[in-house]
């Protein structure tokens, strides 16, 4: 049975919540601007609760099982984070309150800035960006502003490895740069030879993901950052894969000038079916004055009797604000809670276990699946989802079949440089037992691909809906539903 829409469930006269009657004298409404018709559905509270509860049961989620989407870092979300983010003292503060009434918030933001600086090796952090892609936009605009500020106006091009996330080229284009792809060499690193040939004084910078989207640590990282710096370019670091580096290496130390953090990935804040995330940006000494503001600082040192006083400040050459207010404060609380509960050893343990888990899974699949860049990987790895002797099977079929075994599939078709890629990121929060069960399922599916390919082609069989007609969705575009006519 499919679940009716809230419009189909509507029944005239019902309401899910009551409000007090007005306790003030009445003022006439502005008659020319009054809305005639508000065709919203009418439901009782129990109707609403049951509808969304039934919908929720059609979702796969981290609380249910492994969600090994490469590059998304779907780790377990500790419930303590949800508890702290909901403390009324946080959740009910207005963003425009006077600073003296929100010292708790400012303390938290200040220390989160400090911790992120320390974890990744930067001079300053702005917490404002709302998501990873938003952090990228921020960082590239900062690089742009830096060159402009120095009167260096001929830098119009940004280098992007062909293994990069789609957000990287889109971000560069949005910021007015020409995108120059850099190929990957046979070991899965940036091709240094070609990189050298592309470098000149029109290069504003490079956008680098490390570990890259093949799950590999960029073996030539020091050389890459040095070469780009030598021609006056800057290095943007895509922080999406920071989970593998906590306590292992600091991007800032490796020559990265500016980088975003995905708080929702690395620091365990839930992804919420697509967001919200948070994408704070860290910057090296020469870029820190270009960060978006406001940033929290100590405005008055404390002493034995008084704690320090925190306040907001705009960086000197700030690119300006990238959204309203200060960023996703609710997400910052979750990340702060998580870091506070780990400390330096705990964070290193997170990265180590993420890397052990990925390598273990890679080892278990080796031989059954082709691994195009077969090295020790970091927190994720890529296998090919096809076999020469089972030509009709593609990665998507394997993914759909995995659902029948009660697992969420890995990322499909990314990175684009691997044909039929399955990009697998188990994260540190999966146990050996879960990894074994997942590997067993993938090995079983490989066997089915050869013996019963139709099982894969027609999968999934045990899900709330079967394989979905995506072509029809795009062709007969239906993006909204309404109340039945008699209720409107």
């Amino acid at each position, binding site marked *: 049975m499919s679940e009716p829409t809230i419009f189909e469930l509507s029944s005239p006269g019902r309401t899910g919540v009551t409000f007090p009657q007005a306790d003030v004298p009445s003022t006439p409404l502005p008659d020319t601007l009054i809305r005639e018709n508000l065709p919203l559905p009418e439901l009782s509270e129990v109707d609403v609760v049951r509808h969304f509860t039934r919908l929720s049961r059609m979702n796969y989620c981290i609380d249910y099982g492994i969600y090994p989407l490469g590059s998304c870092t779907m780790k377990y979300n500790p419930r303590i984070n949800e508890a702290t983010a909901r403390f009324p003292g946080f959740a009910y503060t207005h963003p425009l309150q*006077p600073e003296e009434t929100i010292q708790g918030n400012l303390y938290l933001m200040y220390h989160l800035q400090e911790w992120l600086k320390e974890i990744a090796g930067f001079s300053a952090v702005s917490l404002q960006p709302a998501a990873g892609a938003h952090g990228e936009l921020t960082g590239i605009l900062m690089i742009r502003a830096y060159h402009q500020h120095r009167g260096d106006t001929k830098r119009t091009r940004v280098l992007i490895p062909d293994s990069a996330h789609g957000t990287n080229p889109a971000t560069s284009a949005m910021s007015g740069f020409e995108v120059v792809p850099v190929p990957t060499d046979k070991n899965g690193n940036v091709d240094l030879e070609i990189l050298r040939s592309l470098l000149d004084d029109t290069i504003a910078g490079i956008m680098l993901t490390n570990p890259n989207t093949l799950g590999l640590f960029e073996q030539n990282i020091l050389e890459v950052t040095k070469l780009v710096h030598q021609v006056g370019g800057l290095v943007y670091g895509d922080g999406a894969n920071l989970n593998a580096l906590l306590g*292992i290496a600091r991007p800032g130390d490796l020559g990265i000038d500016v980088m975003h953090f995905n708080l929702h990935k690395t620091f365990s804040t839930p992804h919420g079916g697509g967001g919200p995330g948070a994408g704070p940006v860290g910057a090296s000494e020469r870029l820190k004055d270009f960060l978006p503001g406001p940033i929290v600082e100590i405005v008055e040192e404390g002493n034995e009797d008084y704690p320090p006083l925190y306040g907001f400040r705009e960086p000197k050459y700030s690119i300006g604000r990238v959204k309203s207010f200060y960023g996703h404060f609710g997400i910052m609380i979750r990340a702060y809670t998580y870091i506070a*509960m780990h400390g330096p050893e705990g964070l290193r343990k997170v990265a180590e276990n993420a890397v052990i888990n990925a390598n273990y899974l890679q080892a278990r699949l080796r031989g059954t699946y082709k691994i195009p860049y077969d090295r020790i990987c970091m927190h994720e790895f890529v296998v090919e989802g096809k076999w020469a002797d089972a030509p009709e099977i593609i990665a998507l079929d394997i993914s759909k079949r995995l659902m029948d075994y009660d697992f969420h599939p890995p990322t499909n078709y990314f990175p684009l440089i691997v044909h039929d890629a399955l990009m697998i990121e188990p994260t540190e929060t999966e146990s050996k037992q879960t990894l074994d069960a997942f590997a067993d399922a993938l090995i079983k599916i490989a066997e089915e691909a050869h013996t019963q390919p139709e099982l894969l082609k027609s999968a999934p069989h045990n899900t709330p809906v079967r394989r979905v007609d995506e072509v029809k969705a795009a062709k007969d575009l239906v993006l909204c539903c309404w109340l039945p006519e008699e209720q409107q």
Partner: protein
Amino acid sequence: MFVPNADPDREAMLKTIGVERIEDLFTDVPEGYRFPKLNLPEALSEMEAYAHLSELAQANSSVRDLTCFLGAGAYHHYIPAVVDAIIQRGEFLTAYTPYQPEVSQGTLQAIFEYQSLMALLTGMEVCNASHYDGATAAAEAVIMAYHHFRGKRTKVLVSHALHPQYRATIRTYMQGYTQLTITGDECTDCDPLAGPEVLLRAIDTNTALVIVQYPDFLGRIYDYTELANTAHQAGALFAIAVNPIALGLLKPPGEFGADIVIGEGQPLGIPLSFGGPYLGIFATRKEFVRKIAGRLVGETVDQDGKRAYVLTLTAREQHIRREKATSNICSNQGLMALASTVYLSLLGKQGLRQVAELCYQKAHYAADLISQIPGYTVCSNAPFFHEFVVCCPKPVSEINQALLEYGILGGFDLSTDYPGLKNAMLIAVTEMNTREEIETLRDVLEDISHE
């Protein structure tokens, strides 16, 4: 803590991997940069973390401790208990972007319902699955309009009564579009309380987009039909930034001929949370659907013919189109969109109208009382929804300081963004404010003016 594997598990795994020690997994990291010592505080237990965070939260005075008359883009509304109960369900909370529709129908249908509710509320035909907030949605509207004219129209007109932070965000976003001019809000020598008619003269055939707000940043409500018509006659697009609660009472922007409706969805069941996470609304007409940024959910069928939902028109998006995409948005505000969907479903036709009317009635009562205090005037005579400008006898910072001593969070000091509005305060009143609170505000304002 959140790592299940213990030492024996790890040893077995390292053996399968074929390395001796954990450190052997990191030899690609340049030596000398490996295993930095992080200067961070030692780990807290859950109990200690709870206590520490609780202490920080208590160091704030929230709008539960204070009586709130502060709005200016973030509003204190009642959130029914069901909203948080639903969004805390792990199945919604801990799921990801629904790339695999067969195991994500819950998220997909919820977003589809969100798109539907927002389209109805705004009077538009399509709505995307959300932006980060109202400010970034406004910036994306500018980008869409710019590309709609293929860069040939290079002027964007923004009303000076569009939220100052939205205008700032637009300007940051558009720094790479060097030929584009963003103008219309440089109100240096003009009347800061002027209405939208000041934009009429500035519209020309080089104008790509005109953006206004409804109710505007100063709380006022205008009929934008004439402005929309003038924009359209010049061939420009017309965008309106909305407060969605006001649309429970007011004519929807679709009826003014808006091409794009953007807005801040925070008032719809999302806590103030010190400014975020919020919800960026972006709705438009069907003809622009292929130019819209971000995610869209479409209805379709599965292979058995059963109704199903799926992300659609993905070829617009960055992960497919890369540098040719018009926006880089990827993570959006899925959970916040769900919160607003649950909120609107609960309130429905009657509830939303009731909340909007309560805001309207209480704000007008407050304005009446305040305008009777000697020295204070409600200094705009345009109709307003639930926020209004009060001209005060002394600087707003001083008044707010004094109000705070009475446990009142005063209105927004407009002089920070409008130098021409010295001593002017923007006061917001919602259904959360009781008559008693409003009367106390009047009494205290009166007392302060005597001090």
